[in-house]
């Protein structure tokens, strides 16, 4: 079987549970040695920014889990360049080190996968 797996994050922080649920899938896949990549597009790029203060609205912050991804050897994290610039963000605004991709490369990243989960 082929199982290079991509997890696509598309939702803004605190919007719903999808980013957290997707991140939990990432951790489980990693424990099973599935080669995974994480892609953040649209509002999900905001999930990676430093200045989220989840306690103000009594929501769970997944920043700690995101920061811990490296420990799980999850280092293929990709972010849409277009969406970063749409929100006036750059690499220095992000809490994890990411590969910033132009749209054409995002499409190629998706093509390379065997399985895609896109919550």
């Amino acid at each position, binding site marked *: 079987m082929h199982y290079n797996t991509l997890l696509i994050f598309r939702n*803004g922080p*605190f*919007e719903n549970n999808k980013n957290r649920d997707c991140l939990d899938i990432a951790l489980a896949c990693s424990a099973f040695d599935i080669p995974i990549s994480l892609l953040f597009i*649209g*509002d999900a790029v*905001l999930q990676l920014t430093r*200045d989220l*203060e989840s306690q103000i*609205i009594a929501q769970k912050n997944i920043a700690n889990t995101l920061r811990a991804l490296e420990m799980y050897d999850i280092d293929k994290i990709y972010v849409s360049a277009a969406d970063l610039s749409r929100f006036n963000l750059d690499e220095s605004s992000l809490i994890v080190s990411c590969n910033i991709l132009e749209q054409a490369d995002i499409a190629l990243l998706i093509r390379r996968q065997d399985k895609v989960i896109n919550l």
Partner: protein
Amino acid sequence: MMELLEYETLHIINKNPGNTQIYADCIQNLLEGDAVLLIEAAVYASCDKTMALYFPKYIPLYTLKADVDARGISQRMSDEYSSIDDDEFVKLCCLYRKSISWF
């Protein structure tokens, strides 16, 4: 002739600006005397300069402070918006004759 009241409908939006249909539905139904309050994910609309242009100039625009602060965007909010706390949210609901939530 319709009676002119000063404080009519408070429109509350809580979806991010990517939900274009919701914003269009709300904006189409704004009349003078109405106001718009952005809460939860909708506060991101306040960072978007072009978004403010879609709202008629005569409509007061508010954002909910807790949601702005939680998302760390208070510095990026357009001048058109006033940030209000929970108590002011309740006060707006009293001031305006009714509210409509768009979600």
